[in-house]
């Protein structure tokens, strides 16, 4: 178990695919692809608006978490953390919700009052969706922090059980999921790549 604090944005990475997170975390293997480059530019170009606080960094030994909240909406009577996402599908993912929940937990501790919702802003549709943070979210975040802190370089997580996730993954070129399944089929047991047939080369 590491004493390092988990980055909130990594909650998202890990819940997307533990193997992807393992590559990024231990081997710094980050492919350059459209999604990542695009995401970075969007963040840089976003302008500031009234009654918003940009980029608040928080950390907590208690939670084992640290992270930077994109935007804090200080309007009305409650403070709402906003996470900005690029999502071609016009929707966000479950993993984005977890990331948001992580920010809510951090903010809660920082302010000393409960934060019951966050918001995801989608660039594509210019939409802001409010997301209530449930007990289930909180529990999942805590379990995940636990799992992430006990990861080790010696044990590579299995291939994903959902092939769709590989399509937009920047670590795919290094991960080589289908190729791994073809070369060493036992490595794909119990994953989405189990059906891959080994091409006999002889």
């Amino acid at each position, binding site marked *: 178990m590491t004493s390092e604090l988990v980055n909130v944005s990594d909650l998202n990475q890990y819940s997307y695919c533990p193997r992807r997170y393992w590559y990024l975390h*231990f*081997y*710094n293997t980050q*492919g*350059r*692809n*459209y*999604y990542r*480059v695009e995401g970075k530019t969007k963040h840089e170009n976003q302008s500031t608006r009234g009654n918003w606080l940009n980029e608040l960094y928080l950390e907590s030994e208690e939670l084992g978490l640290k992270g930077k909240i994109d935007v804090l909406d200080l309007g009305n009577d409650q403070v709402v953390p906003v996470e900005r996402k690029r999502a071609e599908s016009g929707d966000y993912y479950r993993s984005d919700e977890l990331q948001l929940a992580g920010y809510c937990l951090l903010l809660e501790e920082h302010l000393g009052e409960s934060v019951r919702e966050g918001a995801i802003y989608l660039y594509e549709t210019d939409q802001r969706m409010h997301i209530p943070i449930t007990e289930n979210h909180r529990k999942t975040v805590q379990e995940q922090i636990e799992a992430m802190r006990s990861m080790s*370089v*010696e044990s*590579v997580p299995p291939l994903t059980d959902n092939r769709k996730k590989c*399509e*937009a*993954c*920047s670590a*795919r*070129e*290094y991960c*080589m999921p*289908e*190729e*791994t399944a*073809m*070369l*060493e089929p036992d*490595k794909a047991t119990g994953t989405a790549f189990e059906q891959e047939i080994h*091409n006999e*080369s*002889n």
Partner: protein
Amino acid sequence: MKATEGMFDESVVYITKQGTQVRTDGGRIVVWDVDGDGDKLVSYPTEQLDTINVFGGVNFSTPFVARANEHGIVLNYFTQHGKYRGSFVPEKNTIAEVRRAQYALSSDDELAIACAMIAAKIRNGRTLLGRKGVHGTDLLKDLGVRAENATNKDELRGTEGEAAERYFSRLDETLADGWTFEKRTKRPPEDHINSLLSLTYVMMKNEVLSGLRQYNLDPFLGVLHADRHGKPSLALDLQEEFRTSFCDAFVTRLVNRGTITHDDFNRDNRLRDEAFKTYLSKFDNYMKEEFTHPYFDYSVSRRKAIRQQVILLRKAIVGELDDYHALTFTR
């Protein structure tokens, strides 16, 4: 094409024009003709590049080198004629965990990896001969099996030497009229074919070397080639499986199609300046050319296939895969 598949493409640049300077300008890398008319010759998006090869009198601005360091771009220096001089390696190209695993390889693990590479080299040589209609290579088949099952490195080196001799003795039969190949000679290459082979091996060594660096393996710690100061043993090891399949095939193509003729060489068996430029552009095209991958069954450029072998090698070294799977062409 899916977005993630563009990653390796067009990521290598060759700069041969003398008197130019490479600079950075916004998000782009720009080549200026400083000694000539002072014009901008060409520019590339920084994100896209991972290797820049420069030949002779080309220089880099200091801000450019800083940018190359930041973006993990490897710079390789050659003389104007293609002799390798050295490299600039970005500081982030070290991952302790990878190096630790590489240095901790047991000699059994090293042998297993080396056997796979040499067996592939022998098999690929036989495949190349077969494709060109050279038959009666059963002995190479036997030597391939022997390489696969070698019980120590000396035995493997012996088998490799014997196979190389057999293979080169038949290479002559793959060449068009007017070209001959008697035996492999280096330092200096004694004929035009040997000269082209030597040059191509240098170019390939460099492809492999920058791939190894990109994936944070130490190119100087090999699994088969003996350690010697300044010798990139691991690059030479991994290069083995590409020597026959890619390098020799490229050289035979150059001469058989008449792209390079005897008139293109000077007295030292070296390519003349214009022919060398032609050679480089043909080599780059050859690296970008796609083929159907023998195991994965999709279309892939040679350059990408080489990077994939680096990844597979690293996976075998860090224990993510049980074995090293060399790139073997069986037909």
